[in-house]
């Protein structure tokens, strides 16, 4: 079982905003870059599968030079090697271009499983895994809350609005995972040391045969025209319950015509 896990480096915007919520100070310098947290669940699942069936785990990421840190960090969870696609023209690529780059980087490498998180915390599109499956013409086994490999057969539970679907396919396949699938491990000291020396291929677009004209901000097939901060919400009314809290909510709901 050779598995590739696609990992995206994202700004740790969540932690930053959380700080501001608790003490009203915004630490602007703390725009730390981290592994998309959903991808850690994919790495964990890949490691569990090779622990049960043998094989190796490779980390693949497309992103700027500093994304190398995230690839090493991902490897330190217990993966074997990494591939980092970095090229100046990639800046601002949309999902269509990202899926093209990942698919081209994966082509011909004969992975049995290509794994993803089901969503990046910055783009939040949940489309890249399905797009890569389409481009590589592989079974799309996405939104998995459970993954079972049996010889050349793959079974998953696919999360749905009403519960889950049981889905079966052959290998190789593309899998994305939801966060309830497992609990990602912390890197061990041994693996952190090993990750420093693990093989890491840094490839440019021409190395993987992608035309520079197909990627990047200028050629993206969707463009942001403008953006603005959401107008701050007017401070609401907060009262302390002294036995009349329920009545006050009921009154509020009535004036707002909810009850």
């Amino acid at each position, binding site marked *: 079982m050779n598995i590739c896990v696609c990992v995206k480096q994202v700004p740790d915007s969540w932690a930053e905003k959380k700080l501001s919520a608790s003490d009203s100070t915004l630490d602007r310098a703390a725009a730390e870059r981290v592994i998309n947290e959903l991808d850690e669940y994919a790495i964990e699942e890949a490691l569990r599968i090779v622990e049960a069936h043998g094989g190796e785990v490779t980390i693949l990421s497309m992103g700027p030079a500093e994304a190398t840190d995230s690839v090493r960090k991902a490897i330190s969870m217990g993966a074997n090697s990494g591939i980092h696609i970095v090229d100046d023209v990639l800046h601002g690529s949309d999902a269509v271009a990202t899926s093209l780059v990942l698919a081209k980087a994966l082509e011909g490498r004969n992975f049995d499983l290509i794994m993803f998180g089901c969503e990046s915390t910055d783009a939040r599109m949940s489309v890249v895994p399905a797009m890569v499956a389409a481009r590589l013409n592989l079974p*799309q086994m996405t939104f998995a809350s459970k993954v079972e490999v049996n010889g050349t057969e793959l079974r998953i539970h696919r999360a749905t609005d009403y519960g889950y679907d049981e889905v079966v396919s052959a290998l190789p396949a593309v899998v994305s995972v939801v966060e309830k699938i497992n609990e990602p491990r912390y890197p061990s000291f041994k693996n952190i040391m090993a990750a420093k020396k693990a093989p890491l291929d840094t490839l440019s677009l021409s190395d993987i045969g992608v035309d520079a004209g197909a990627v990047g901000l200028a050629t993206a097939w969707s463009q942001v025209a403008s*953006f603005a901060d959401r107008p701050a919400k007017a401070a609401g009314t907060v009262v302390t319950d002294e036995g009349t809290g329920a009545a006050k909510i009921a009154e509020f709901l009535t004036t707002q015509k909810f009850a």
Partner: protein
Amino acid sequence: MTEVLVVVEHSNGDVKRVSLELLAMAAGIGTPSAVVAGPGASNALATLTAHGAETIYVCDDAAIANHVVVPMVDLLAQLVNDKSPSAVLIPSSIDGKEIAGRLAIAVNSGIITDAVAVSSDCTATQNVFGGATIVQAKVTHGTPIITVRPNSIAPNEAAGAGTRVDVSVAISEAARATTVTNRVSVEKSGRPDLSEASIVVSGGRGVGGEEGFANVIEPLADALGAAVGASRAATDAGWYPHQFQVGQTGKTVSPQLYVANGISGAIQHRAGMQTSKTVVVVNKDAEAPIFDLADFGVVGDLHAVLPELTKLLQSR
């Protein structure tokens, strides 16, 4: 006016409200055409006609539901190529987003996800970073493929022509790569669907257990005719099923009213409810960040406040 294709989500012809909202949105761009496929598709005709569909493309092939996403993509790609619509609007659900992604590749088009409004020239409005930033975006290549969040617009009550056009699609080899062998439903509660509900009553760690959901949260929800939601702390503890989790890795909801009880307001939770129109909070910690979002908040014990509130609402 050119056609705008609207992907209909339904269960055996019972149309989800979001699809009706999309028909109303499509009417602001061009002529709304519904695309309805899978088991029971024909049962949806009357509802779609009543909500403004001019043309209804129907594919009654039950086999469509046996494979993940791809048959619907094949059907839509065929329609996009035949009809050159000015846009394709798709509900922002798990399937909807993946259909949109694959369709973009199939018809060489740009894609925008999670729009909350789409103007007549197909400029889409998105709330990003958990609702903190509002973006205007446009597809600049091919047919705009746009997924739209539930509760973004009210359905249109004016009837359309509802002309039925039967379409068929071959189940391709790519579609057969996956097979759905079983569908497992969490028990139906009889409450409104969480992602579409106009009122959501949510509980978090402060609810204290499964019984708290049954005895405190659900009765309040029922008194308001609301759906029940939960924080991840509550679903992870097994107090309420995962399907009801609200947040970054759960459902994104945008109801008229969101009542957050015993929820601290972690950024991952806020990401799923920040665009709710009105927010009511009950939490015993006055410092909880969720109060930042509150239109009306009570600092107090939910076990005291909520049963009392339920009683007051029931007595009206």
